């Protein structure tokens, strides 16, 4: 008799240790796409103590769980957009879990930005006016949007304006700035006057422009090279507003010849006369 009781106890103990199988809750308002933020996701189940996690491709998002009579209602803690695409909704209770594949779509994609990356950022007109442009569109929740037809990305090589200046690929984004820099001077004109008070020649060059008519960059070095009595002198000045000037004291009975150069561009040689 004692043995029978012991067997009974053992069997009932083993049965109580066995995991109770839970039936998979029925997703009542399931549809092809899970539009986010969703109001409520309703499930039918008689089990309690549920946990619900929505696994997007990036991260697990815990959902609010409300348990009612034979039902389970889920909603998002933060009513915001998500990364779109395939995702998993996992319901778990007492060590058991159930998976519901979903496809996330945002009801409102928020602001869609047209991204325009330019490269290179600095264009030097003498080395060509071509620039690479990479275009795509991103919504507020970092989902890449279709750009043109079935393509998500587009890139091409464009020709930028030859007018020197600072431009923006997107007028609203200062980080999208790119720079067109003037090239080197194509023609140097020298002129001079004689300053009687200081008894010296003042040699000037103005309006130095590149091949596209841009005033050449401030700080470009211009060399004035002049010869007096078979000796050659060189004087360097920095260009400001496309021009520069220098002065050479007059030496009686000596002929002064001068020319100027910027990089590889030379002016005509002129003879200084009072």
């Amino acid at each position, binding site marked *: 008799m004692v043995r029978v009781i012991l067997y009974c106890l053992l069997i009932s103990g083993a049965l109580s240790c066995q995991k109770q199988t839970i039936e998979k809750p029925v997703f009542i308002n399931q549809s092809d796409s899970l539009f986010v933020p969703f109001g409520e996701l309703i499930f039918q189940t008689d089990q309690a103590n549920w946990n619900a996690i929505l696994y997007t491709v990036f991260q697990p998002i815990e959902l609010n769980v409300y348990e009612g009579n034979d039902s389970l209602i889920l909603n998002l803690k933060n009513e915001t957009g998500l990364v779109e*695409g395939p995702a998993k909704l*996992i319901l*778990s209770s007492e060590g058991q*879990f159930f998976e519901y594949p979903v496809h996330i779509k945002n009801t409102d994609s928020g602001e869609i930005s047209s991204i325009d990356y330019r490269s290179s950022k600095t264009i030097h007109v003498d080395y060509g006016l071509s620039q690479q442009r990479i275009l795509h569109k991103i919504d507020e929740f970092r*989902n890449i949007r279709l750009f043109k037809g079935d393509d998500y990305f587009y890139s091409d090589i464009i020709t930028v304006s030859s007018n020197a200046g600072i431009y923006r690929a997107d007028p609203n984004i200062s980080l999208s700035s790119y720079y067109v820099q003037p090239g080197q001077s194509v023609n140097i004109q020298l002129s001079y006057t004689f300053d009687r008070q200081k008894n010296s020649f003042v040699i000037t060059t103005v309006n130095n422009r590149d091949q596209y008519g841009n005033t050449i960059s401030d700080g470009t070095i211009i060399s004035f090279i002049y010869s007096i009595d078979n000796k050659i002198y060189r004087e360097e000045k920095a260009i400001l507003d496309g021009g520069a000037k220098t002065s050479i004291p007059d030496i009686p009975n000596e002929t002064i010849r001068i020319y100027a150069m910027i990089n590889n561009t030379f002016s005509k040689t002129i003879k200084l006369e009072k």
Partner: protein
Amino acid sequence: MLRILFILFITLLTMFLYLRGRVQHKAVELPVFLKVDHIARNHKTEIDIKILSDIKPDTIELIRLRKDYSFLWGHLNNLYTTNDIKAGKEYYTEAVFRLLAKNYTEKRKGLINRIDHKHEVNIIDWSVDGLVCTLIDSNLLFTYEYPDESIKTTQANIALVLLFQGDHWRIDAMRFLDEKEIINSKN
């Protein structure tokens, strides 16, 4: 006399404790270049790269991309399991980090583990300055490990925008194109 000495002693003791507290160093977060990123370094995956862009990266740039892309997925998988958004912050641009933070619920013990076995990276655009890369990762093989030890293998296609910021590539945007199940140990 004894009382004065006692008060003096207490004052000195208080001052000592106060000053000691002030000079104590606070725990500081090490700069990125001094940290060892175990999550990234322990991650292994197979990456095939096809260059479809007119402007092509050079070999050194490709080595860098391959390495950072593996590190990025190491962190994305870690994020998928743990929801620890801070661990991989070096591999997300500010905009992506903000999105992750916005949807952050809590750090949790992993329920599902995701493993990325294989990537076929098709470089669609590569910028002349090497700072922007758009790509489609096709036939990406994922394995999901569930708590009941069942596994599921899927094949996915993902479009990505990567930006080179700081000293590595970061994810800036994504389009999870599709995912289909190829093996399910439960079936």
